């Protein structure tokens, strides 16, 4: 990073306030010896991320969340959510919401697409806040260490979905269920309502393989609209209790489990859309 943890600490103390510092100090993470975990997470940068996200979380998107008590407080678990909005603000808001609403605070470990690792500065800041690249080995290591993974099974096609496809889940990847079964982790379905309207897309320009980024979106607005976010957490799906680790090798079981998670997320989205009074309310 261009600056040291103590500068991140100073910024978070100055602009984030005591609540942010308190969360950072109570954060449980496996320190590999120099204040960082083996993937690069550092509590002072988590506090910095918390500070940067706060104006968006509190003022811009005015996040409301429902059912955060369903997030396991310890042990391996996977948050599986819909993904949308052109910019990954939904990931940032979900990360912030989990950090603020778990006690003791848990840092979810967002699993990002490979191209994120190629972005200068962003990749480093993300890593310091807990983001990991989406390889199976990284996910395995984190679940074995009892961490909380944050996965968007729609992937990049989700975040770049056209406006006409809002709240319609795109192709739902299955890797999260395979991981959940193999490493005995409950899956908590999450429905994020609001993000799908934040930055309607006019189109997208393919990069033609010249970049690790698959395409450049063309949004209708330069910045996200101040939609209100509603984050709904569903009851954990205990795949770990229904299947043995070896069942993770059975494609039919994994497919069926992924379909269940997808149905649960879709149900949360529909519930959230029914509950909200308008895009900005």
């Amino acid at each position, binding site marked *: *990073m*261009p600056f*040291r*943890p*103590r500068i991140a*600490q100073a910024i978070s103390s100055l602009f984030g306030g005591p609540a942010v510092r308190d969360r950072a100090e109570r954060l449980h993470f496996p320190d*590999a*010896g*120099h*204040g*960082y975990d*083996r*993937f*690069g997470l550092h509590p*002072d940068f988590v506090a910095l991320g918390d500070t940067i996200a706060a104006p968006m979380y509190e003022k811009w998107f005015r996040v409301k969340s429902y059912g955060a008590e369903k997030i396991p407080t310890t042990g391996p678990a996977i948050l599986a959510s819909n993904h949308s909005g052109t910019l990954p603000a939904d990931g940032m808001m979900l990360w912030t919401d989990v950090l603020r609403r778990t006690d003791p605070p848990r840092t979810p470990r967002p699993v990002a697409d*490979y*191209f994120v*690792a*190629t*972005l*200068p*500065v*962003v*990749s*480093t800041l993300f*890593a310091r806040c807990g983001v*990991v*690249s989406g*390889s*199976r*080995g*990284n996910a*395995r*290591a984190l679940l074995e260490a009892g961490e909380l993974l944050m996965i968007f099974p729609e992937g990049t096609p989700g975040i770049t979905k056209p406006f006409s496809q809002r709240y319609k889940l795109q192709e739902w990847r299955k890797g999260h269920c395979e991981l959940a079964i193999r490493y005995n982790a409950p899956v908590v379905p999450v429905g994020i309502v609001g993000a799908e309207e934040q930055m309607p897309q006019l189109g997208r320009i393919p990069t033609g393989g010249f970049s*690790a980024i698959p395409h450049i979106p063309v949004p209708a607005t330069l910045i996200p609209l101040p939609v209100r976010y509603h984050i709904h957490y569903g009851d954990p799906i205990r795949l770990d209790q229904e299947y043995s680790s070896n069942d993770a090798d059975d494609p039919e079981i994994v497919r069926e489990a992924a379909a269940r998670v997808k149905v649960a997320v879709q149900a949360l989205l529909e519930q959230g859309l029914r509950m909200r009074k308008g895009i900005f309310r």
Partner: protein
Amino acid sequence: MISVLVTGATSPVGERLVRSLIADTRVKHVLAVGFEPEDRALPFSHRKRLTYLPVDLTRGRKVRELLFGPARDLECEVVVHLAGNSDPHDKGRKIHRYNVEALRSIMDLADRHPTIRRIVVRSFGVVYRVSLDLPILVREDHPLNLSPSAPQYVRDRVEADLTACARMGLANCEIVVLRCAEALGPGTGSQLYDYLDGPVALRPAGFDPMLNVATVADLVLALEKATHGSGEGVFNVPGYDTLPLSECVRKWGVPALPLPGALIKPLYNLRHAVTGSNFEYGLNRHRMHFGLVLDGTRARKVLGFVPSSPVDWPMGGPIN
């Protein structure tokens, strides 16, 4: 009580291992082999428990004479193979013979040797492929760097590693391969040490990957555990320190200069041309973007190895 043959005994790791084995009451005799003449090698007291021999391991006949001569006479049961070239700029057939064929000869001969029952091979973390779609935390089943465009320095290490691995379970003796993290120290062949040893550390702007570094003491500890252990396999040997590249540079006390990646390689090539420094940016480019941390779980469970010696950082002190 066992006797141990150590190749590459005059390297920093080899010298320290020999010292340690001599002090070990479970070891009867150490047969140390290196390139240097006897009067310039291993200048320490050994109470008649050490024999040093200068042997050119690139010559098959010399290897045979070593194993079926002094090694047989001293009833060596374990071979610890540390010999290998450490300068990535060295190339050619002779280097390949030293890095790969010497090990192949030792293994061929050990298979029909009357006393050798175990071979411990020091391999390197550099054998692993580093890529954005691969995990940062590397287990022993991680893909190896088999790229045909990799420099000989890497290809030789991968070939030597695979040469040893391919014989596991088939040879008459047990084979242990230790894929070691870099030991920060002069003469250890550590690219990171050569990088930090410069007047300024150029690093890719915007990237700050996680690295794991070891000490010579920890590598020696792992080699000792492997020497006295049983069974065979491949084991990662991580170091005690896991930290970002920027912290590494800061703790070493060298100024860092972030630059676009495209500028760094020519500048380090220039440094090599002017000062003869061993650091080769092309070898480390991916690691300096995406990071690599060895997972030592297997070595802990099977060999009982836990890294315990932190690097003595020149600018140590508080983490922040």
